[in-house]
C-alpha cells in the first residue's frame, strides 16, 4: 500500500508512541495534590515547556485542547465573544475563504447564532490572501473587527499564507489575529512570537502525535471566553482533566518534528517534486493546483480534466493507493471543494481534483506505486466521464 494522505493524519512517531505508552501506564490526575497527581502534573508542565520552546511561545501561552477543531472553535468563538463583550461595536468575524471548516463553520455559527457579521477574505488563484485585501478591510472597518482568522497553510492545496504580514496589519489595528497552523507546524518554520499572531492552533495527529490532543497558543493579554466550563484547568480558558499521556506524546512529536524539520523539508519536497514531475509526464493535461513556491513540502494537488475525483479515489483505493479528494461531505454527499472554488476553479475542475500528501515515512516506493496505478485510473475515470451534471 502507498499512503499518500499524510495531511489527513500521519503515523505516530515511535518516540511519541513510547512516551504515550510510558505515561498512560501511570495513574494520576494532574490536578490532584498527592504524589501521583504531582507526577502527572510534572509531565504535563514539562510537555507545555517543550512545546512552547519548539514553537516560539511562552509556556503560559500553551492551552491544551482536544485537537485542532477545538482550538479553532475556541479561538474564533472565544475571542469574538470576549471582543464584543468589551466593545459591542466589534461584531465582525473575518476569515479567509479557504479556511478549514473548523474555522469557517465556527464563524458561520457566530453569524447565525450570535448576530456576528462574517466577512470572507478572497484569495488569488494560488489560494493566497492578498495583504491588500486585509489592509483595505482594516482601513474601512477595522475598529469593528472582533477577530480575524487566516490559516498558516492550506490543508487541501498546501498554499502558505503571508502570515507575518497579515498578523502585522491586524496587530497594528488592534485586531486579535488567529492562525490555524495545524498543517504548517513541523513542515515550515512556525514561531508564535515572531509571527505576531494573538492565537495559533496546532494539533497532534498531523505531526506524529496522537489524535485528540492539540493546543491553542494564546497570547497572555488576549481575552478569550471559554467554550468549555468546568474545573478551569487550562488558564480558566479551557476545562477538562488533561490527557497526560496524550500531552506527553504530543510534546514529544512537536519537539521531534520541529527538530527534524529542515532535513525533512529538503527530503520530502524533493520527493514531492519528483511526484509532480512524473504525474505531469504521464498525464500532460493535469492541472497543478496551488502555489508553486510558497507551499507545504509534502503537498501535491492536481485536477484531472474529464475525471471525477471520487472515481479516481475509488480506483486508486482498489490498487492500494490512498489519497484524498479534499472535498468535504455535506449531508453525506461529496461537495466540490470550497478551496478550489475560492481559487476560481469551476465546479468541474473542483470535482476533478485529488490531493497527494507525503510525510515522515514516505519513500520513493510510494510515488512509484502511485505512478503505476494513476494512468490506468485516469483513463478509466475519463471513460466514466464527468458524469455529474453540475448543479
Amino acid at each position, binding site marked *: 500500500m502507498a499512503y499518500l494522505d499524510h495531511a489527513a493524519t500521519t503515523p505516530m512517531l515511535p518516540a511519541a508512541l513510547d512516551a504515550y505508552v510510558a505515561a498512560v501506564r501511570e495513574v494520576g490526575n494532574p490536578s490532584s495534590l498527592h504524589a501521583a497527581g504531582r507526577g502527572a502534573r510534572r509531565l504535563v508542565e514539562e510537555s507545555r515547556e517543550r512545546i512552547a520552546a519548539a514553537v516560539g511561545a511562552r509556556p503560559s501561552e500553551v492551552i491544551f485542547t482536544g485537537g485542532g477543531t477545538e482550538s479553532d472553535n475556541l479561538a474564533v468563538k472565544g475571542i469574538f465573544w470576549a471582543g464584543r463583550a468589551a466593545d459591542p461595536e466589534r461584531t465582525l468575524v473575518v476569515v479567509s475563504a479557504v479556511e478549514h471548516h473548523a474555522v469557517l463553520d465556527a464563524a458561520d455559527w457566530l453569524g447565525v447564532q450570535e448576530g456576528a457579521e462574517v466577512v470572507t477574505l478572497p484569495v488569488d488563484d494560488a489560494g493566497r490572501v492578498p495583504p491588500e485585501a486585509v489592509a483595505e478591510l482594516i482601513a474601512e472597518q477595522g475598529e469593528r473587527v472582533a477577530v480575524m482568522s487566516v490559516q498558516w497553510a492550506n490543508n487541501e492545496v498546501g498554499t502558505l499564507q503571508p502570515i507575518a504580514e497579515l498578523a502585522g496589519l491586524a496587530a497594528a489595528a488592534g485586531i486579535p489575529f488567529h492562525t490555524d497552523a495545524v498543517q504548517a507546524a513541523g513542515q515550515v518554520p512556525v514561531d508564535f512570537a515572531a509571527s505576531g499572531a494573538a492565537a495559533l492552533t496546532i494539533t497532534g495527529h498531523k505531526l506524529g502525535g496522537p489524535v485528540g490532543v492539540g493546543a491553542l497558543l494564546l497570547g497572555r493579554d488576549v481575552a478569550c471566553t471559554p467554550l468549555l466550563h468546568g474545573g478551569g484547568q487550562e488558564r480558566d480558558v479551557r476545562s477538562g482533566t488533561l490527557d497526560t499521556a496524550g500531552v506527553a506524546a504530543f510534546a514529544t512529536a512537536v519537539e521531534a518534528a520541529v527538530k527534524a524539520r529542515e532535513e525533512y523539508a529538503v527530503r520530502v519536497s524533493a520527493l514531492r517534486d519528483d511526484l509532480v514531475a512524473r504525474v505531469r509526464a504521464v498525464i500532460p493535461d493535469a492541472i497543478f493546483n496551488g502555489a508553486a513556491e510558497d507551499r507545504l513540502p509534502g503537498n501535491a494537488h492536481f485536477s484531472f480534466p474529464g475525471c471525477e475525483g*471520487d*472515481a479516481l*479515489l*475509488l*480506483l486508486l*483505493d*482498489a490498487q492500494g493507493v490512498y489519497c484524498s479528494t479534499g472535498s468535504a*461531505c455535506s*449531508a*453525506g*454527499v*461529496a461537495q466540490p471543494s470550497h478551496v478550489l472554488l475560492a481559487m476560481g476553479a469551476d465546479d468541474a475542475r473542483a470535482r476533478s481534483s485529488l490531493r497527494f500528501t507525503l510525510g515522515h515515512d514516505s519513500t520513493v516506493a510510494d510515488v512509484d506505486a502511485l505512478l503505476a496505478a494513476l494512468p490506468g485510473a485516469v483513463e*478509466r*475515470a475519463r*471513460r*466514466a*466521464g464527468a*458524469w*455529474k*451534471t453540475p*448543479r
Partner: protein
Amino acid sequence: MRVLAAMSGGVDSAVAAARAVDAGHDVTGVHLALARNPQTFRTGARGCCTLEDSRDARRAADVIGIPFYVWDMAEEFHDSVVDDFVNEYAAGRTPNPCLRCNEKIKFSAVLDRAVALGFDAVVTGHHARLGADGLLRRSVDIAKDQSYVLAVLTRAQLDRAMFPLGDSTKERVRAEAAERGLAVADKPDSHDICFISDGDTRGFLESRLGAAPGDIVDGRTGETLGTHNGAYGFTIGQRKGLDLRVPAADGRPRYVLSITPVSNTVTVGPREDLEVDVVSAERPIWHDLSADVSCEVQLRAHGEVVPATVSVADGTLTARLTTPARGVAAGQAIVAYRPDPGGDIVLGSATITAGSRAGADV
C-alpha cells in the same frame, strides 16, 4: 468478478453484498444518495435515503469488510423518477417509481458508471432469481418477490445484474444478517414511496401540481356526480375517497373507471365496468418471443396473475386475458410470466396504455 453492491442501508442489500463476497467476487459497496435534502433520521418505515440509512450502509460494508462510497444520484433520481412520477400522474396514468428507479438509476446511471470504472456487474438485494441460465424468475419468497419491478430490465442490463437473495425467504435473510453480525438485521422493511416521506401521495402531488378541481361523472349516464380537487389524486379501480353527492341508483359502490386529463374528469361506474380482458401496452421489453405466447400476466405490483395470450407487434404488446381483470391502470407495467416449478420465469414487460373489453372500448 469486480462487482458493485448498491447498499441502501437495509438488511437485504447488506446480505446481498455479503453473499457476493462469499461467492468470491471483489465487491465494492455504494450507497446512492437520492434525496436532495436528506433527513437526518428515518421516521417510521419509509424511505431509504436518510443520513442514518447511509451510515447503516457504511457500517454494514465495514462489517462485511468491503470498500464503501456514497454516490450522489440526487439529480438523476429527481429527473428520471420524481419528475416522471409527477408527470405521469398529471397525464392520468399511474406510475411505479420503484420500477422506474431500477430502469433509470440502478441499472442505468449506476450500472453505466460502474462498468466504465471497470466493474463487471451490479449487485442488489432485490428478491428475485437470476440464475446461470440468464432467466429472471420470481423469488422463492412469493410475498417478497420483486421480479415485477425488475421486469423492465433489458437483456443487456440483466447480463450485468446479480440478485443473490432470490433463493431465500426474507426470514432467512434476516436470520443470516444476524448471524453475520449485521446490525441492520432487524431494521424494518421500507414501504411506500421513498421520496414521499409522510406517505401522503395525494398531498405530494397537490403540492407539485396545484389544486385542479374538476368533475366526477358517471361512465354510463354522463351525469355529473361530484367534484374532485385534482384528477391526479385518483387511480383506476379506486373506490374510497370519491365523496359523491349523488348516490348510485342501485345503491352499489362505484369505482374510478378512467381519468381524462384533458377535460380533467374522473369517470366512475359499477365494479363490472372495471373489467377488461384486453390489455394494450407500449415499450415492450421482450425476451425472445416470436408468436403468440400463453402465459400469465401481472398487471400491478403485488397484483394477482391472470392467464393470458400475449403478442408483440410494432412496438405494441397486446394481452388477451382468459378471465377479466379489474383495476388495470395505464402507466403500470404488465409483466408476463411462464409458470415454472423453479420459479415463474419473466418473459417480458411493457407499460400499459389501455384496457378494454373484447370488441368494445371501456
